[in-house]
């Protein structure tokens, strides 16, 4: 009997083993993620204001959300920030990676580390530092502007400048990490492609356009998805620096969720916002994946 069991384990090891490998993760996952996630999904169908009874309201929270102008504003702001991440941060990071990948460049180690330090600095500390940088009267940035004869900018005080300030801060924080991702991608490109093209007489720009970019596509995809997912979860920097103001100019989706839950006490509505956010992020990511043809390649 025991021997049979032993034999059957040996025979079936490869079938059972993968489940055992992934099990510890999924146990924690079930307890600390799946359960709370389902709990808030249920909550999103209830009107749960403050303490006490809850009323089942079906899809009402979602309908209200669909019509909520503040929520629209939050989506627009967050998209604005995401666009900044994708179209400003990502190209800058690629340029930085190309520079860092150049063979002639000196001080590579210094550059890599220097640009990376903001990523490992706590978001709370970063926000505290930048409160001093962005301050209209006593801040570093405006001191710099005044020194070169320009007028001060109300960085975080005007609705027009507030989100660009947060985007600049985002670039400051994330540039190094994204450049490293690109650098990793660049160094993984097989040199033989360049050789072949070079023999055919391609110039440097053509190499970049027809070899680097296509071969970098998976990394670009990764960086862009990361940027979008991260952007749609933006919370700490505007929370500490502007609290979402002025005039909701930096109100993000997660901040609106947090406000509805913990300042206005509308737990059901807040849960609905959470799920709307999940849908937005999943949709955008799927579009990206399809656009880049990832699924086809994975199956091959």
């Amino acid at each position: 009997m025991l021997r049979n069991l032993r034999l059957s384990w040996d025979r079936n090891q490869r079938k059972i083993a993968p489940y055992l490998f992934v099990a510890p993760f999924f146990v924690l996952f079930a307890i600390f993620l799946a359960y709370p996630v389902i709990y808030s999904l249920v909550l999103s169908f209830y009107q749960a204001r403050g303490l006490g009874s809850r009323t089942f309201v079906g899809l009402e929270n979602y309908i209200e959300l669909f019509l909520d102008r503040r929520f629209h504003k939050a989506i627009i702001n967050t998209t604005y920030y995401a666009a900044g991440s994708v179209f400003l941060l990502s190209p800058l990071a690629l340029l930085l990676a190309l520079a860092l990948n150049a063979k002639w460049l000196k001080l590579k180690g210094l550059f890599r580390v220097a640009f990376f330090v903001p990523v490992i600095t706590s978001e709370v500390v970063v926000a505290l530092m930048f409160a001093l940088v962005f301050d209209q009267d006593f801040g570093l940035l405006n001191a710099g502007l005044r020194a070169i004869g320009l007028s001060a900018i109300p960085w975080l005080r005007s609705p027009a400048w507030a989100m660009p300030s947060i985007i600049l801060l985002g670039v400051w924080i994330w540039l190094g990490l994204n450049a490293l991702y690109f650098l990793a991608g660049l160094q993984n490109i097989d040199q033989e492609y360049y050789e072949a093209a070079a023999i055919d007489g391609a110039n440097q720009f053509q190499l970049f356009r027809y070899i680097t970019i296509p071969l970098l596509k998976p990394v670009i995809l990764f960086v862009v998805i990361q940027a979008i997912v991260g952007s749609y979860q933006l919370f700490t920097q505007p929370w500490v620096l502007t609290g979402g103001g002025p005039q909701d100019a930096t109100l993000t989706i997660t901040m609106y969720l947090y406000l509805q839950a913990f300042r206005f006490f509308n737990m059901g509505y807040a849960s609905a916002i959470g799920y709307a956010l999940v849908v937005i992020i999943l949709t955008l990511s799927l579009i990206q994946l399809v656009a880049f043809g990832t699924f086809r390649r994975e199956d091959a």
Partner: protein
Amino acid sequence: MAADQTVTAAKTGTPVKVRALLTGAGRLLVLLLLLGGVFLTAVPYIYMVSATFKPNTEIYSIPITLWPRNVTYFNYQQLFSEFPFARWYGNSVLVASTRTLLSVFLSALAGFGFAKYRFPGRNVLLIVLIATVMLPFQVLLVPLFIEMVRFRWIDTYWAVIVPFAANAFHIFLMRQYMLSVPDELLDAARIDGCSEFRIFAQVALPLMKPGLAVISILAFVQSWNDFLWPLIVLNDINMFTVNLGVATMVGPYRIQYGTVMAGSFLSTLPIVIFFLTMQRQFIAGLTSGAIKL
């Protein structure tokens, strides 16, 4: 853009010169731009450190000073006399290292499982995994808090170590690393009669050192810098992590910015040192194929 590259043709062995886009002046410009970038990155830090040696009145005075006019150590004295700062440090070290170990172990295991086996349900589980990366943490706040209270984990190290130790993104990265381990190696071990776990522990894992370094750094930094969650589950000031401690020193009803900056500086220092000592492995790890989708 990129510099010229001398590429050696493998077959002939003769160098093929590609016409360079950037020559002397262009290179100098790139170098200057990079140095400018480093300066912009460094200035806020310099300003923070200098603020820690300023009396509060000097931080908010015109003209602003990059270096303190009147050097004071008051902010540091305040930090250690008014707050259990050393204890916060100890908590952070304990919590961050335990959570890192746990996270690395879990993600290596699961990453291996996903990368090296085809099994029914794998794709479903993978999609679940990717979906959780995208889940906004705030959705979990209230239900997870209730769970912590039910477990009687409030004000314990468990609450800040366990719930977020299983990180889907780490597994995802680990899976990418594991994909690059050749199957032949594993099959060879199987023929030698190794159990699947031994294959993982003795064959795959040693090959994964760069990946492990990357996950360690990510997990450690994440845990060290965690803010919202510790704030919710830790009440006892002696249980605070250093990042939470620093954050609780700020607010509209307390504005000793110099002291806050001193706390910020000291809380950032170890993580930067940790990164500097690990950065070689980290960068090697990232560049050795972390992100092949």
